[in-house]
């Protein structure tokens, strides 16, 4: 077999997945139709898994295929599909380019660390908080890096192009106005990029084999792989080339051992081996071995206890993190619940399914979706919320519901969106311009798509807003448009469980216009 060719194919596949993922996050002018997103992200492990358990659909079966492939050839996923994996490969490639003498060595296996991280992540997931997964999942981390760093860098480049072309009277490229920035998201993503950057620059796939919960899960899976990469003791000349190119640091050439659990099947070792010392070996005979089955029994016991422990502990924790409704507050501009995106059904479903990959943040045309800091609480940090000071949710737009890889935001038709109530409006008369200044305003009512905010007669021939929450969809247009400073006179409080609004009654006017009648002037 020509492993050189196979490796080149592997590199192209990896670049392909990296490219389509990055383009989804970096499409600042939204040229890609959003409905193709589920197809492009089909194989992404964590999004696909969450989507599968969330609501079964054929588009959520990608992770099963990943597991099957892992059970045959090992962690091909990590080396070809995972965008963070490819990002790390690009960085360690740069390291090799800068320092031509650089080579990899067998790394210590931080077993305790990686299994502890996986255990804690699982416990937090089963107890209903995705906070650890959100901070560790490679897809979501890549998303955060793309969305909060590269996208923000791309926007000025685009705008510079737009304003340069404008000098030549070309308006085809238009500037993108950033309505809000989440500093937490920027700082977090930059730190992650820096940490993973340093790790991969010096030690290759260290993150994948010590921190990444997906890497650990697939590593455990690859213990049972049908074919494993091993060193053929008779063919191996002991030159040690394979160890120097192993970016996962899992080859111990001296003892002729490959730790396949940590191997990402990048095929680098095949390409440098001067003899036929590296082979894909079928591990079928191992299963027929009696001694092996005994070990399996022990393992089975261990795993059963492990999972019972995880689920028991998580049930305990779940009881602790129940959302307790806060007391009525006297300060009206302090929001108790921040709005979650349309289609997320409410806080419970959203908090327990969103991995904060920020694809919706990238996809949102008005930038109303912003990474949260404490808006959703510590346990749901970085999960996007509707920032109505920056923008509002477009009445007939369902883009975020089409792109969400985990279905934390479920698909929604435009018809349903029109009557979906994600929040309710509160009017603070004491802050309103009509009351304080005695002048006309009505910006809130102007922007309201359902006329849930109407203007009713007020003193001195003025009109003042009145809220009819039965028609409110919670889009936040009124809050965004409200001109008062520093506190808004009208604001949206998120619905913990999304509801259905009443459809605004249609007014009918006399359509019989006499076009021959004289003008009234």
């Amino acid at each position: 077999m020509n492993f050189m060719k196979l490796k080149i194919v592997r590199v192209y596949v990896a670049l392909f997945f990296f490219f389509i993922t990055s383009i989804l996050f970096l499409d600042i002018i939204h040229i890609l139709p959003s409905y193709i997103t589920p197809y492009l992200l089909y194989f992404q492990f964590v999004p696909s898994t969450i989507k599968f358990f969330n609501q079964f659909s054929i588009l959520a079966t990608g992770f099963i295929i990943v597991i099957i492939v892992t059970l045959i050839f090992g962690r091909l996923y990590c080396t070809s599909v995972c965008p963070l994996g490819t990002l790390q490969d690009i960085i360690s490639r740069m390291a090799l380019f800068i320092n031509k003498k650089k080579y990899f060595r067998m790394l210590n296996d931080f077993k305790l660390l990686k299994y502890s991280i996986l255990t804690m992540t699982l416990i937090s997931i089963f107890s209903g908080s995705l906070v650890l997964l959100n901070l560790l999942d490679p897809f979501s981390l890549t998303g955060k890096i793309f969305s909060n760093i590269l996208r923000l860098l791309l926007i000025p480049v685009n705008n510079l192009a737009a304003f340069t072309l404008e000098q030549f009277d070309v308006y085809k490229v238009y500037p993108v106005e950033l309505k809000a920035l989440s500093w937490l998201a920027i700082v977090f993503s930059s730190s992650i990029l820096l940490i993973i950057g340093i790790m991969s620059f010096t030690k290759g796939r260290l993150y994948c084999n010590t921190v990444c919960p997906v890497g650990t899960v697939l590593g455990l899976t690859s213990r049972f792989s049908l074919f494993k990469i091993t060193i053929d003791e008779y063919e191996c000349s002991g030159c040690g080339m394979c160890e120097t190119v192993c970016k996962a640091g899992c080859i111990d050439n001296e003892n002729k051992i490959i730790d396949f659990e940590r191997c990402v099947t990048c095929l680098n070792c095949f390409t440098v081996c001067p003899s036929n010392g590296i082979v894909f070996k079928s591990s079928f005979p191992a299963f027929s071995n009696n001694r092996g089955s005994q070990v399996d029994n022990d393992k089975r016991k261990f795993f059963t206890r492990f999972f019972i422990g995880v689920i028991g502990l998580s049930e305990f924790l779940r009881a602790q993190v129940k959302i307790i409704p806060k007391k009525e507050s006297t300060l009206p501009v302090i929001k108790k619940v921040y709005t979650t995106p349309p289609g997320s059904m409410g806080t419970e479903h959203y908090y327990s399914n969103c991995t904060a990959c920020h694809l919706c943040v990238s996809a949102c045309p008005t930038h109303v979706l912003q990474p949260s800091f404490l808006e959703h609480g510590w346990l749901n940090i970085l999960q996007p919320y509707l920032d109505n000071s920056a923008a509002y949710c477009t009445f007939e737009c369902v883009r975020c519901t089409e792109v969400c890889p985990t279905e934390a935001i479920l698909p929604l038709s435009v018809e349903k969106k029109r009557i979906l109530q994600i929040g309710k409006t509160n009017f603070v008369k004491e802050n309103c311009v009509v009351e304080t200044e005695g002048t006309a305003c009505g910006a809130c009512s102007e922007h309201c798509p359902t006329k849930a905010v109407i203007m009713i007669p007020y003193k001195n021939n003025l009109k003042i807003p009145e809220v009819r929450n039965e028609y409110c969809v919670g889009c936040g247009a009124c809050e965004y448009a409200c001109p008062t400073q520093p506190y808004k006179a009208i604001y949206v409080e998120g619905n913990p469980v999304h509801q259905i609004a009443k459809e605004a009654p249609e007014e009918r006017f006399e359509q019989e216009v006499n076009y021959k009648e004289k003008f009234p002037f």
Partner: protein
Amino acid sequence: MDRRDFIRKSIQAGLLAGTAASVGRFPNLLAYTNLHSPNQYDLVAIKGGEPDLMFDKAIESLGGMKAFVKKGQKVVVKPNIGWDVTPDRAGNTNPVLVKRIIQHCYEAGAKEVYVFDNTCDDWKRCYSNSGIEKAVKDAGGKIVSGDSERYYQQVEVKKGKKLKETKVHELILESDVFINVPILKNHSSTELTISMKNLMGNVWDRGYWHRNDLNQCIADFSSFRKPDLNIVDAYYILKENGPRGVSKGDVVLMKSQIISTDIVAADAAAAKLFGLEPATISYIKLASDMKLGQMDLSKLNINRIIL
């Protein structure tokens, strides 16, 4: 540097023209008609036809578009594209009318015709769902974004009482001819939105207007750069729930159009058409008091066309 100079010059020219105009009885006519032969009519009202046909007839009675657009001039057409709704919802200016206006401009020899609005809803959806983006492209015009603060230049509103300075879209400052194409609509806070209110789409920060006496600010800004021509689209009009409208039930098919160089006169006539007295619309009254135009329609020479 060239562009900056150009902007400065055009602002100076505009201010000069404005000062010169303030002495006349019809200031805006004086300011712009010195470029072409005096019009026979101050205002044209037409009804009973399609938007494009009505415009053909109406502009003809004002001496054709060539009375307003000279060869090689840059023209900016400012429709109302504020909302993410379809043309039959009457939230935005009729695209058929916008297209015809651009065609007339090019026929008159315009070098380039630009169209923009600082929309309320997501601008890309507004441009596309209003049908105006397509109309502009079909007519060969240039559709320009109004969604970035960098397009807007700080200007002084000399005559402003509450609005002393504001940021205005560069196309308004740079173009030789400014054609204002509002749609006649009910409005939740100002009763009606017509020509003067449509100029709110020329500025970046509308919140300031809302905070500081909205009606006065609308009147104030009408003194800044008055449109060379106001074309009020009253084909579909929004009778209730304006300015965005909730459903087609809010819309009446009026099949009318009003054209005038006098922004106050255009708004007064449109208000009458809607069924309201101009003096009851706060900003029309304020603008009239500031002598920005003629609110009393009896003093105007009006051409009334019924098709």
